[in-house]
């Protein structure tokens, strides 16, 4: 090593800092960051990390299990069967003329994607405190990788759903695709947006208030009852219709049913409104997330 000139070779505190103007810093760590400073460009640099997180979640979730990835199929299938028996056969709730099995499965497939995104991303900070307390990487890599992981299990569920759909179709059941099917990616994006947005809001708030972690678990279950998974919107009396209109998830689920099964109560304005609300939820989530991310290690 050659010698070190000036400032740091003397055992003295040097506080005069005047770096030459041409020096270009790659990172400047400052106390404050704007609520809107989301650093999405930096997030792109972490795409390999995101893909490895996704891969880890997928691989490690089924190590030392017998059925492995088959759980992606078993879980929605069992839930659908349960719903079909309880709501279809015992309670005999009407399903817009769609076979109950397909009706419930369509709802469950959508709902699971939203609910898994929400519950899993809601523990981003608290659940990964040990990791986040040691290394810096863009913190959004975690929730985004969760949304992508869930997309894989959504894809599997959707494939199963389509298999059943085709088999019902060939048995002569009156179901048909509508033009809404082209909106499927949009519905998916909206479910991801709501799940992710809600999840990161909760994750940011749980760094301070752990109570919310408990709230999320049963809150999601309660919300399911208000999201028309078990019965269609068309069954709600005009007086209670506001419940359906208040819940921005309803147009997505009804839209999905209309797209694949040919029956559902939804219009373009409802979907557009829901989309707007989704953007707002996501933006609030990103703002809170950005705000908390700076210093959450001091409070967790």
């Amino acid at each position, binding site marked *: 090593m050659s010698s070190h000139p000036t*400032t740091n070779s*003397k055992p003295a*505190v040097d506080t005069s800092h005047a770096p030459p103007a041409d020096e270009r810093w790659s990172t400047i760590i400052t106390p404050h960051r704007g609520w809107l400073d989301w650093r999405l460009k930096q997030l792109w640099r972490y795409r390999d990390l995101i893909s490895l*997180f996704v891969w880890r979640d997928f*691989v490690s979730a089924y190590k030392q299990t017998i059925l492995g990835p088959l759980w992606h199929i078993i879980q929605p299938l069992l839930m659908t069967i349960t719903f079909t028996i309880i709501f279809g056969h015992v309670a005999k709730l009407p399903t817009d003329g769609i076979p109950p099995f397909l009706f419930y499965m369509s709802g469950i497939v959508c709902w699971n994607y939203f609910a898994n995104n929400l519950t899993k991303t809601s523990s981003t900070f608290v659940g990964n405190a040990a990791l986040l307390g040691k290394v810096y990487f863009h913190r959004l890599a975690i929730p985004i990788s969760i949304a992508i992981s869930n997309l894989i299990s959504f894809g599997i569920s959707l494939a199963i759903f389509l298999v059943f759909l085709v088999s019902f179709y060939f048995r002569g059941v009156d179901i048909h695709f509508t033009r809404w099917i082209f909106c499927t990616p949009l519905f998916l994006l909206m479910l991801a947006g709501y799940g992710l947005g809600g999840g990161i809001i909760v994750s940011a708030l749980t760094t301070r208030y752990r109570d919310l972690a408990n709230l999320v678990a049963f809150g999601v279950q309660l919300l399911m009852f208000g999201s028309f998974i078990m019965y269609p919107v068309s069954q709600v009396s005009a007086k209670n219709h506001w419940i359906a209109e208040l819940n921005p998830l309803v147009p997505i689920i009804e839209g999905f049913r209309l797209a694949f099964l040919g029956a559902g109560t939804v219009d373009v304005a409802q979907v557009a409104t829901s989309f707007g609300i989704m953007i707002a939820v996501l933006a609030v989530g990103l703002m809170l997330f950005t705000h908390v991310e700076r210093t959450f290690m*001091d409070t967790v």
Partner: protein
Amino acid sequence: MSTVISVENVTKSYRLGQIGGGTLKEDFSRWWAKLRGLPDPLLKIGEEHHARHLGEQFWALDNVSFDIQEGDVVGIIGRNGAGKSTLLKILSQVTTPTSGQIKIKGRIASLLEVGTGFNPEMTGRENVFLNGAILGMTKAEIRSKFDEIVAFSEIEEFIDTPVKRYSSGMYVRLAFAVAAHLEPEILIVDEVLAVGDAEFQKKCIGKMQDVSRGGRTVLFVSHSMAAVSKLCQHCVLLDGGRLKLFGPTAEIIPHYLKSGKQTDGIRIWGEGENTQDPRLKLRAMRILAPDGTVVGHVDIRKPFTIEVEYQILETLPQCRINLRVLTSDGTLAFSTADSIDPNYNAGARAAGSYRTRCFIPGNLLNEGYYSLTMGVDIPFKKILFMEEAALGFSVEQTSDLNTRFPEKWPGAVCPLLEWQTKPLD
């Protein structure tokens, strides 16, 4: 050579008292009481004085500034609570400063604890990729260095075994191997050398030297003055959140060893610093001359005693007092523990107050300044208390004409040994 890290007036403060509130209800009741001008309802009775401290600041770092040059290996040293970890956390962007700023040129990677993000269920191979990505490498970079990483870790045969089956040594070797092959412009290393066997430690030190020879900058945080003096050209000495000194390692280490702590031969632990485990409280540590007086310097020829007084609050399954004697450049002269005493009770030690003494013979230590690191542990299970440089003392040569060592000899110790020469024919 240019500046790669510029730390400018960095301050980090934590609010005391108000962080504890973990539930919405607590925060709400606190806010509601404040609104009505009532004292904090969550303070325990008799803790009223804390109300004044509520909102008071604790300065983990206080206006710290320094510049680090490209290619330098800089040691960050200081006692527990001096602000080292806070500084590292800010540098590695885990948290932000309260005021001031840090400018960094180039990619920075921190190795705050080896194996961060290792997934126990996954194999060594899978973890290399995962850990590499967490530390900031791209998949392509990891792939190109994979063979090198595995060779460095020396665990080729087990690379496809889940890491939960690894010994702790293998785990650390693999983790360090990944980190060592990062190629950031700036590498932050925190205490990794504390683990692994001597052979592997040597390899790690070699790797870190390679890194710095390659023109990259290393920040090294360690309590091991031997490692710091071996590796670092410069040192930052932190004390109580402030930058005390910054300069060449050889000049800084003696300051660290002498800093703050008593050199008058006695160390008394006060409330707040006397316990690191609820079962044990430290009281005092003293250096005693043969006549029983407390001294800060001892005669090179005469024996002296190191005594530790402590209180066990709850019966311990086992208890051992460890001492390390370090020279002023941080070299370990020797270490000892009360378990070598033939009368040592290896079983449970009941609650109560104890005094343990270690008798150091005369004509053993060399002239110069020594510091004592003191630890109490349950052997191989738990460290109950540990303090670096808890007490310092100097060994002096009195101007005696009969002295056997007329000038200072090199060496950590200077024992008076028996020699013999006989004519052979």
